[in-house]
Every structure is written in C-alpha cells, then in structure tokens.
C-alpha cells in the first residue's frame, strides 16, 4: 500500500479535478421524440401497489421501512425521494350500519352500478411531468430539465440539494434524500423509454389503470373513457390536468377522477408560482429605487 501512495494521491487529484470540471461539460442534446406521458384511470385502480413495487425494483430504490400510517391500507404514506409511485387509498364510508347478512349479494344487471354505503377511491400518484414545470423553472443548476420525450427529468449527478424544486412543486412530489442529500423523483423510466420499453409501473399495472404512451393519444383515449363512464351514469367522472387552466399548464401525467381533486390529495386549482415573478421583481425593484432615491436626496439636501 505504501508503494502505491503517490499514484493514489495523483488519482485523488484527478478525481477532484474531474468532479469540479465534469458538471460544466456539455453533450449534444438528443433530438426531440414523440411526447409521452401517463394517463391514470383511477376508476379501475384496485390498490394492489404493483406499480410501487415495480418502480422500486426497476429504479433500485431503497425501502422506506414499514409503519402504520392510519390511512386505510396506505402504509407507504407519500411520494418521496425513495417512493416515486404511491398508491392512495381514500375511504369514503358513510356512518350507516352495514346489512346484517353481508354474504348475500344481489346480482346486478350488466352496466349498472351497485348502490353501496360508501366507497374506496384509489389512485396511483406520481410526478405530474408538467408541461411548464415550476421545479424545472426553479432549478438553479440545470439538473431538472425537459427531456426529448417532454418529461421532466432530474439529473441526479448534477443536483446539489438546494431544495428550491421542493419549494416550487405545488403537488408535493419532490423531496431530498437523506442518504445523498440530492432530490430524486420519477424519471418516467427514461432509460426504459430510450430502449422503447414501457415504464415499469405501467407495465406492472394489472388493470391498465396506469397507461403509458404518446400524450396526444392518451388524452384522446381518456376523453373517450370519460364519455363512456358518464353514459353509465357516473357523472362525476372528469379529467384532471389534461388541459391547461388559467394558472397552470397541462400535465403530461394526468388523471381520471370521480371526486374533488383535494379528496385525492391534489390541489383543486394548482397555480404556477412563476406567474407572479415579474410583479414581485417589479415591486421589489421599485422599493429599492425609492429607498436609494430617498438616501440620495438626504445626502444632497443636507449638504
């Protein structure tokens, strides 16, 4: 070991220099490809969490441990740097007594919906891959970018853990990992997409609640599904994030919901904070000019 010390020291210096310079090296950006995304139909989600498992397995994400959250069967809690998919269980049970003989279930006619005393809503949540993403606008290192599939991709070798993306995201998707201090989130299986493979979660979903594909096709398919559900009497069905609102862009990962967004832990009216940036700069700048002008007037007048 003693004999190799000079080489080790030289290697250390080279590594150190490489670590300083590598982030500044730029490759050629890939050519744009067809925009892709997720369409999640929550009405067919059965809460199996296969998507969570597949995501963890493919992306080699560590376990979050196990603890009872007190939220139905949702014991993974929330999206995080180590959980890029998260299935929510929303229990909506009215306070009425269940029938005594629950074993007897009347057969239903095809196409009818059972009148139950309550329901469970299930939703597989993930990064929304916003068309105009506040996290990407916030990122000061260029770690977060929109890749050739128009997905929001986080380059973990660039992120320095400043946390501004966490502050910017109105959906609470991104967190910083404790093991390396960097932010992590869904990549929409960028590596798999480059090899023309379906993202792990969509591949694993047994009910096709999570659908992956070209975003325009997904939006068309989702609208047809809403019409179908409404024709069956489910008039609450609607799409969340398929179209841009006054305050927020389209989502490239959008949802079919049958209750208010807040019931699923989604903001009812997401707002892109960058809409206010110019005004905030103007107010601040104007205040600065006024303060300095007052200072100069005092320096001039009291001479």
């Amino acid at each position, binding site marked *: 070991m003693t004999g190799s010390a000079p080489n080790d020291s030289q290697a250390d210096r080279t590594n150190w220099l490489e670590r*300083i310079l590598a982030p500044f090296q730029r490759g050629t950006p890939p050519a744009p490809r067809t925009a892709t995304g997720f369409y999640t139909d929550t009405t067919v989600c059965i809460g199996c969490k296969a998507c969570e498992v597949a995501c963890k397995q493919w992306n080699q994400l560590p376990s979050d441990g196990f603890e009872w959250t007190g939220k139905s069967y949702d014991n993974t809690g929330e999206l995080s740097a180590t959980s890029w998919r998260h299935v929510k269980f929303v229990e909506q049970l009215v306070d009425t007594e269940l029938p005594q003989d629950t074993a007897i279930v009347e057969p239903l006619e095809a196409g009818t919906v059972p009148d139950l005393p309550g329901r469970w809503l299930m939703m597989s949540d993930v990064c929304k891959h916003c068309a105009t993403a506040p996290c990407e606008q916030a990122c000061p290192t260029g770690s977060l970018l929109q890749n050739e599939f128009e997905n929001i991709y986080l380059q973990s070798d660039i992120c320095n853990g400043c946390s501004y993306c966490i502050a910017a995201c109105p959906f609470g998707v991104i967190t910083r990992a404790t093991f390396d201090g960097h932010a992590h989130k869904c990549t929409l299986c960028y590596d798999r997409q480059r090899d023309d493979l379906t993202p792990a979660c969509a591949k694993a979903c047994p009910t096709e609640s999570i659908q992956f594909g070209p975003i325009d096709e997904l939006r068309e398919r989702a609208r047809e599904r809403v019409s179908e559900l409404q024709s069956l009497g489910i008039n609450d069905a609607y799409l969340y994030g398929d179209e841009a609102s006054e305050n927020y862009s389209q989502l490239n990962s959008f949802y079919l919901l049958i209750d208010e967004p*807040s019931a699923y*832990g989604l903001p009812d009216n997401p707002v892109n904070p960058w809409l206010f940036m110019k005004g905030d700069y103007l107010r601040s700048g104007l205040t600065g000019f006024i303060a300095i002008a007052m200072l100069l007037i005092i320096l001039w007048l009291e001479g």
Partner: protein
Amino acid sequence: MQPANQSTPSSDYAQSGIVKSPHWHWLVVFDVWLNNLTSGLFLVAACGELFRPADFSQLANTAYLIAWLVLLVDLLLLVLDLGDPKRFHHMLRVFKPSSPMSLGTWCLTVYSLPLTLLVVFQFIGSPPDGFHRALVIAAIPPAFGVMLYKGVLFSTSSQPGWRDARWLGSYLVSSTIMLGCIQLLLIAMFFDEPVATRLMRSAAATTILLNAITLGLLFFNLKPTLDEMQTSQGVVRVTWSVAFATSAITFVLIWQPQPFVSMITAGLLLAGTLWVRSAVVWLPHRIQS
C-alpha cells in the same frame, strides 16, 4: 357511486398538506439576514462615497471590509445549507434568469469580485482613484441584485405563506437599505464623523418609515394564512406585534444623539429584522406542523 359526504378522517388526504417544505431552517434565516447586511452596507456606503466623497471615503473603506467579511460568512452558510455542499459550484453551470436562485447566485458571484478587489487594495495600497471608483460602480448593480432576489425567491414558490407574500421582496429590500444606514451610522459614530453621523441618522429614520410601510403590506399579504394557523397563532401575533413596536420605538430613538442610545437602536433593529426573517422562513414549517 355518488360522492360520500361523510368520509373517514383517517383516510382523508384533503386534510393533510399537499406541498412539502424545503429543508430551509436556521442556516437560511441567517443567510437572508447576512445577505441583507452585506448588500445594504455596501450600497449605502457606495452611495455615500460617490455622492459625498469628502465625508464618506474613509468610512466607505471600513464599510467595504465589513461587507466583505459578512459576505464570506453568508456564502459559507449558503454552501453548508446544500444537501451536497461539495457540489456548490454546480450553481454556476447555468445562467438562468427564470430562477431567482440562479440569478441570485450569479449576482453574489459578480458582487464578490469587485468587493474583494476593493478590500485587497486596502491592504496592498490604494489603486488609482478612477479604478477604485470604477470598482465601486461595478459592484453596485450586482449588489442591487443580491438585495433584490431573496424575497422573490421565497414568494416565487408554492409554499403556504410565501406564495401569497407579494410584498416580501419589497420588505426585504427596504430593510436592507435600512440596515445599511444603521450600520454606516455606527461606523460614522465610531470614527467620530459628525457630518456622516447626522446624514446617516436622517437616512436611517427615513428608511425605518419605509420599512414599516412594507412590513405592513407584507403583514396584510400574510394575514389570511396567519388566520388559518390555529396552534401557533399566539407566537405569530407576538412576532408581528414586536416587529411593528420595534419600528415605532427605533424611529423615536434614532434621533437621540447619545452613542449608547444609538447602539441600543441598532441592536433593536438588527434583532427585529432577524426575528421577522426567522418568522418568514419558518412559516411553511409552522403551517404544516
């Protein structure tokens, strides 16, 4: 399949906060404060030196040295606050004006260069007067940017409280100039410069008034959010009451010529501004807890 009105609270995601708080705690509180101290002191000293060189030239050199030292500590806090401090230089990979943090990083970098030269020349001998003046002028725009970006960085976010704080940037800017005036007042008193002391006393009093106005505007921005807070409402109200009381008391005290009173006034303003910054930075954490 009608939506049930009586959902079970234990599984109701509507009751839990949607956004997640960034890891910004005490280091960031002091970073905001030191950022305002260094940029405020530099800007006020530069204005004094450029417009009344006879009265402020000597004081300005001391001010630049202090501003530089404060900047060093501030930069250290900024680096330590990162999840991976060894990657601090990644901030300089891109220049991205759409990101207040990127703009702020570049302003801090550009501001540090002429300021460092101004300090270095104090120790190795004065440069030609024109060059010194050019360095001071060169540092003014980035120093203005350093003062400007911080409040916008917070208000351009999705965090409860911050996202509604349209006047946060204005408050931080006005208190930056106020802190600059009060620091230069102390320096002028220390070097027994009567003209500069008198001028800085007037300037400090004027900016205390401006700062109270922007503080009031910020308070009205935050009031709906503060009203929603149940558990820590008392703490929040005390914080804002103390901030307004400090403005009123210091506006009276600043006119007193005794050095001891001026020291107390400066101490109150420094502590008050630190307190408000602490209340603002911790706001999303308090709301979500």
